């Protein structure tokens, strides 16, 4: 009887400082270069290379340039549709946000475990998604107050609200507005974490089931393995969808700030 596989579904999310940087500090705050930071860097490098590859600026684009232009066009169209002509100036931010999350999600799914390297999905950390959500939310607040001043508060009173209802509606709308960064951050974090935990749990089924004997291997191991493959495909989809949702909601919130109602 083979020994139990030590599969801890949560271990993949633990952050480890790399190469003796554990004690790096700025003003008393630890800034150790961790596996999380490493994968942010890898994501950034891959993304930069990807976009740089599409910078040939040919009138008749090659495949790579076409791919990059498809992504910029996709985000550009989304901003035009949600914000209007003003949306063009948010393209750099929303594009970077979308591609950063998308590449992070996809790179985190790479099956590098087979060569002994473990990808780290930093979008499964609410510290990271939270910062991104706060940046988006901060842009909304800054744009809203800069453009409309205190009139921005009329965002919380929809048109046609009866006078007696205004205080109540105002509070409800305010709360729903303030919840936005949390929902934005938690949605991405939970989706990424859930997918990775699920894959890890299923992989432990495959290992433990197959180790428990041929019967278990056929009854548990193989179905779990098939399910894992299917869920990997699903996770690829979720990666793209969550990145899209993050960018879409950001652009919708910016639209509120740009155009009020």
């Amino acid at each position: 009887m083979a020994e139990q596989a030590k599969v801890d579904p949560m271990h993949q999310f633990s952050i480890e400082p790399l190469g003796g940087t554990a004690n790096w500090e700025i003003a008393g705050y630890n800034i150790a270069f961790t596996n999380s930071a490493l994968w942010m860097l890898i994501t950034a490098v891959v993304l930069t290379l990807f976009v740089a590859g599409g910078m040939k600026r040919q009138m008749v684009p090659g495949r790579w340039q076409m791919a990059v232009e498809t992504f910029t066009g996709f985000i550009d169209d989304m901003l035009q549709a949600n914000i209007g002509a003003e949306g063009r100036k948010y393209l750099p931010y929303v594009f970077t946000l979308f591609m950063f999350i998308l590449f992070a999600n996809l790179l985190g799914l790479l099956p590098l475990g087979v060569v002994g390297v473990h990808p780290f999905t930093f979008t499964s950390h609410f510290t990271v998604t939270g910062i991104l959500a706060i940046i988006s939310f901060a842009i909304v607040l800054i744009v809203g107050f800069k453009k409309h001043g205190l009139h921005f508060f009329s965002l919380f009173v929809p048109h046609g609200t009866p006078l007696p209802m205004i205080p109540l509606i105002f509070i409800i709308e305010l709360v729903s507005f303030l919840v936005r960064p949390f929902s934005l951050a938690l949605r991405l974090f939970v989706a990424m974490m859930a997918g990775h935990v699920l894959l890890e749990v299923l992989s432990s089924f495959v290992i433990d089931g197959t180790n428990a004997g041929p019967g278990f291997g056929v009854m548990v191991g193989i179905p779990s393995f098939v399910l894992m493959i299917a869920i990997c495909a699903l996770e690829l989809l979720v990666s793209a969808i969550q990145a899209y949702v993050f960018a879409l909601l950001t652009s919708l919130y910016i639209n509120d700030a740009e155009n009020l109602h």
Partner: protein
Amino acid sequence: MPQIAQLAETYSSQIFWLLLIFGALFFIVGRGMVPKVVDTVSQRDTQIASDLAAAQAAREQADREEEAWRLRENASRANAQALVAEAKAEAGRRNETRLSEAQTRFDAQLADADARIGASRDQALSEIETVAAEAAQDIVHRLAGVQVPAAQAQAAVKEAMHHG
């Protein structure tokens, strides 16, 4: 859950590196590269639009020129037909004059010939008269033994011939 268990010790490094890397990405990729890519796309779009407009203009120009060519062609065809008709008429006129000239010439020759024939016949007739008168003199001399003077014989012959 490491996200919560390690929060206190890792949040500062997570925030630091995220802001650093995401910020660098924003400026390098978002501000540096994306506008150029978008610019290329819009350049291509305007290029395509202007090419299409130019093609449309060229086509309209070609249509106009074809129309003008057709008009010119029709005009020159009509012109050519007029020239041909004119030439035909001219040739006909010239033929007619030449024919009539020839006709007059033939008529003149014919009349001349007729006159000559008439003259010859008259001469022949007078010769016949002379011969007949001599013959009649001779016949009378032989039959009747009468010598008839030539003038009388001639008058008798003329009278007989006139009476047919």
